[in-house]
């Protein structure tokens, strides 16, 4: 994935104007395990949302596998997200009326994968994430740590090329944070998924292979 001269301005041409991102140029290689870091308001979540096509850049171009996606229509972008990007949100955001099993299989079913393959993948993931015993429970019946693991399972289930995780450990205790990071690391190594975090959690930063630090909407460090 390549970001070229990405700028994002909120409330342009108004007294409330905020320049959230200023001329961001980045390349993410396949299989990276990267964290976008920075203080609160530095623009890391905005950048993550633009990478995932949830928000549009004010200017600049985004390329995914060599194809420019910044001018995609909403429908085309939704299709790209469905097929290639997995999201993990801070607040888990599971579908409350579906069981754990159905939540994990949700995207695979939208992709119309074979039902046998879906069930096999669900069993494989719940085994890795150690949530076999809650398969038929609803999100409201399980703990926050378990919900986050289900969200991870949902995000990786369809084997996306890119996983975007926004503060995935923010609502978890240290034990659950460690477990989550280990799991994502394992998935990254085993399935060569590119993972990009937006986080200022020290543990996440320690686990990352690459850390990009943002400040006032600009990249100030990339190591």
């Amino acid at each position, binding site marked *: 994935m390549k970001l070229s001269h990405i700028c994002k301005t909120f409330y342009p041409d108004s007294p409330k104007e905020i320049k959230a991102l200023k001329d961001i140029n980045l390349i993410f290689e396949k299989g990276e395990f990267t964290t976008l870091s920075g203080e609160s308001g530095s623009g890391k979540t905005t950048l993550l949302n633009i990478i995932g096509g949830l928000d549009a850049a004010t200017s600049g171009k985004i390329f995914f596998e060599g194809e420019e996606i910044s001018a995609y229509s909403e429908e085309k972008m939704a299709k790209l997200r469905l097929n290639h990007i997995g999201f993990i949100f801070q607040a888990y955001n599971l579908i409350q009326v579906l069981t754990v099993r159905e939540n994990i299989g949700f995207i695979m079913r939208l992709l119309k994968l074979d039902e046998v393959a879906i069930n096999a993948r669900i069993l494989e993931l719940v085994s890795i994430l150690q949530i076999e015993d809650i398969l038929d429970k609803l999100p409201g019946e399980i703990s926050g740590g378990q919900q986050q693991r289900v969200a991870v399972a*949902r*995000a990786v289930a369809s084997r996306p090329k890119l996983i975007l995780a926004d503060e995935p450990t923010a609502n978890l205790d240290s034990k659950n944070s460690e477990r989550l990071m280990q799991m994502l690391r394992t998935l990254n190594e085993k399935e060569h998924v590119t993972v990009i975090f937006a986080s200022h959690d020290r543990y996440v930063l320690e686990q990352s292979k690459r850390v990009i630090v943002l400040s006032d909407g600009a990249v100030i460090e990339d190591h």
Partner: protein
Amino acid sequence: MYKIAKHLAWLSIWRRKTRSLMVIMMIALSLGGLLGLQGLYDGMISHLINTTIRSDSGEISVYAKEYRLQKSLDYRLSSISNYEEVFSKIEGLETYSIRLEQEGLIATAHKSFGAILKGIYLENEQNFGQLSTFITQGDYSFGKENTAALIGSELAKKLTLSIGSRVIFTAQDASGEINSISFRITGILKTGNPSIDDSSVFVSMKQMSKFLNLQQSATQIALRVKESKQIRIIQKELQTLFPEADILRWDELYPLLIQMQDLIHIFNLASYAIVFIVAALGIFGVMLVSVLERMREFSIMLAIGTPYKMVRDQILLEASFLGCIGYMSGAFFGWLLLWYMSTSGIDMRSFEAGLELYGYSVVMYANIHLYYFVQAFFAVFFATLLSVIWPLLKLKKIKPIQMIQGKTV
């Protein structure tokens, strides 16, 4: 994808069980009540029409031209056998009844009123409209010597007559002479048709012909037609064959009944509009609140790549499920109500005076027709579709990222 939307929609309507059940009940009760009322009103008007056809007009009546305006024996049908010969050749005709009537004065020792004396064949009238079923007191008979009479219930009440009472009827005969005839009452009729109950006296055709000094004559021949779709065809055919006569359908003879029927239809339409609004508002309220409180969830679904079309289908299906369950419950409740009212009837004896004034029966029976349920289905269906437009527009406007970040709509 439709399967997922259907699954999500079904689960979602039971998220707030009480709320969904309330709206289902609201649709069911209003729809059931409406179906019950529609059947009852239709039943009332059908009963009125049926009574009128059975007791008087038939589906078609034949009069001499001018008779209905002048009510004079000068304008009578003669050579009745010619008519009978033609009627026997018309396949669509079930039966007919020949009547000879004259206006006059009916009197007891104490009271007298204007009345209509009708000469009939009892057996024919029985085949024609089961006239005997209207007898409330006495027998369906003109006595052993065929010289007694049957009288309308209201007229009997006005004259304070009972079975066995004697009355005198005075009228002009065919030659203009004033004649009187005396007879004993053997039966009292209550048809629900005010023109009969208030003023008619029935005697045998033989006695009437003798009284009026007429043979082979009639003032009305009422016809029963096998199928209603044949009424106009037969009317046209008879009009061609008997240009000297007026061939009139029941609805031409009793235009008020048609007006009443139209009024009932308008009332039913207005009732449907009310149910439509109730259903639409009920589903709209539930769907709007339900969509607004789940904006975040929909945003997540859209963010992870769910097509808008699927979310839209989910909401449409949720509303459809509510509408369908409401409709089915309402249709079942309405059917139960209609079934009860069509078999047992509703006893409205406490409103007897008012109902009888307009010719309604005190025990009202409802009609049941498939089209009631079809109309109701379309009312609920369109209400369902309308009710989700606004929530869907709200959904279309959301920006998933704003909702995920906790901003309101």
